[in-house]
């Protein structure tokens, strides 16, 4: 805005600050609650400033779990979630890169047919096909395994479509130059296409990692063994205390732990993420 009107400036800042506060307040409460002892969390009014039990709560949440320690802290669930999210993100990227490569660079019968078939699966997320998918996973004896957790989520129309668009912007001459240089399809794929799609891959990795990390329904269905639980489903389970009151300080600490990896991924990959979504020059 070129005009310099103080009132307008104050007003616009007010709106922005309100927005930031609305988003940030629940997170603040989570941090505050995670740093108080059990007793303080049952008193009213609820605290608005951090207390002194943060590290203690962290230790309990990670290593002991609820109610005096039944040996199931959430540490290994963080690990499970991490493996699941990584497998989903890496798997989705790998499969999508390959299918986009096939669709863009190879002439085979029903090429567009296959493309549209992949595209149509956008309308069929796990939630829609949950029963048949469960049946298949169960028959393959993949219940309570990382494969069962990840494989049904790996096929991705969105990523395939995105890589297709990226590959379409790669000039044909590059392919021709590579052919003259003697590069076969696989060499071209690994030496030229993948390095050129680097930023798009990074951007997609961020999105898919968070998607994988936040999975709730599917892990809930196919894991019955506690060793395979993920942290996101555990948050819900922490509230099912039966007769007892929920231990809010530990619930909040677990929530905080669950939020952390996606934040780390976003913060560290922010530059590539923005480049990948906005960069057009090849």
């Amino acid at each position: 805005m070129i005009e310099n009107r103080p009132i307008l400036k104050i007003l616009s800042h007010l709106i922005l600050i309100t927005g930031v506060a609305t988003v940030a307040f629940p997170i603040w409460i989570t941090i505050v609650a995670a740093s108080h002892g059990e007793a303080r969390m049952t008193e009213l009014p609820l605290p608005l400033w951090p207390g002194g039990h943060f590290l203690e709560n962290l230790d309990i949440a990670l290593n002991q779990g609820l109610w005096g320690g039944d040996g199931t802290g959430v540490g290994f669930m963080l690990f499970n979630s991490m493996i699941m999210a990584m497998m989903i993100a890496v798997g989705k990227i790998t499969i999508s890169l390959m299918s986009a490569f096939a669709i863009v660079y190879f002439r085979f019968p029903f090429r567009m047919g296959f493309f549209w078939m992949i595209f149509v699966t956008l309308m069929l997320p796990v939630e829609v096909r949950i029963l048949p998918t469960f049946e298949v996973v169960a028959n393959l004896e993949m219940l309570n395994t990382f494969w069962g957790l990840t494989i049904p989520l790996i096929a991705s129309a969105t990523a395939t479509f995105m890589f297709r668009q990226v590959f379409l912007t790669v000039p044909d001459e590059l392919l021709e130059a590579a052919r003259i240089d003697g590069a076969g399809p696989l060499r071209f794929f690994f030496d030229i296409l993948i390095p050129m799609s680097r930023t798009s891959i990074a951007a997609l990795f961020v999105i898919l990692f968070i998607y994988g990390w936040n999975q709730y329904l599917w892990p809930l269905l196919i894991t019955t063994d506690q060793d395979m639980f993920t942290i996101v489903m555990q948050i819900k389970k922490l509230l099912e205390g039966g007769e007892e009151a929920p231990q809010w300080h530990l619930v909040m600490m677990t929530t905080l732990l669950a939020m952390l990896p996606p934040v780390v991924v976003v913060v560290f990959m922010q530059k590539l993420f923005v480049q990948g979504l906005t960069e057009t020059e090849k």
Partner: protein
Amino acid sequence: MASVTLDNIQKVYPNGFKAIHGVNVDIQDGEFLVLVGPSGCGKSTLLRMIAGLETVSDGTMKIGERVVNKMEPSKRDIAMVFQNYALYPHMSVYNNMAYGLKIMGLSKAEINERVQAVAATLELTEEQLSRKPRELSGGQRQRVAMGRAIVREPSVFLFDEPLSNLDAKLRVQMRLEIRRLQERLGITSVYVTHDQVEAMTLGHRLMVLNSGNVEQLGTPIELYERPASLFVAGFIGSPAMNLIDKKVGANGTSIALASGIDLELDSSKLKSYQGKDIVLGVRPEHLELATGADKALPLTVTLVEHLGADTLVHGHFGEDQTDLTLRQSGVQSVKAGDVLPVSIVKENIHIFDPQTERRIDL
């Protein structure tokens, strides 16, 4: 080193469009052949067929003694320079040049030796070798693209309008460099361009293409002095040849230029055109200002272009509204509205049949 032989090469696209109608040419070992023509004439298609990037619909293509019709581009022992350079954007200049050699399976030491030698030839510095293509200027990228081709030590170079993305000054400079390089390396080259100046200056021979047909194949001077068709006459030479519709006189040995002014020919080749239309072609540099009063044509000047070294005078002969160009060396003090006496010398005329559009030799 190899010759390239095209024998009745044709290209038909799957939708039935015929892009190349049978091209025959025997490109000698070490020859520089330029394919020239307007956009859409099929020159790039023909080049890409030699490269193996387009399939050959019919005919036989040989590089050296090998028939290459169905051979992969990398097996043809060729190298190509693309219009937009097609450098790998994520690789350093060094790796761009080394990539093909790596795939060939050469040792690291040998790759390094070859790349350094080519870089020296093209005056690329060590520092530039480590840069990415996007950090180079257009001229430097062009050099790298050439370097990538040279480093392969191919039998045939293919150039697809390599200079069209450069500014005018750089284009002239690179043109000379390509010429020198080709002469020094002595590698058979095929060069595609739509720029007739580039074509004239670079090629040992030129092939003029027009909608998939070869209009003429010959040395630059042959094309300039004896254009085989109206198309070549209009295409080669800048500014273009003046083409005027005229009638052959009743005697069959003269052309009526204007009322009362006939151009007498010593030849009887026009006998069969008695009283018929022909197209008379005269190059702008061959229209002369008449000194005496002998049969001068009055050129009404409409526009004057001063180029410094030359002056281009545009105008028309009296009632005849055909736009003509006259080229005079030096700076001439002519202005629009002037009437200049112009004479046409019979040694410098070209005659074409308006129906077949072919040249009529005198």
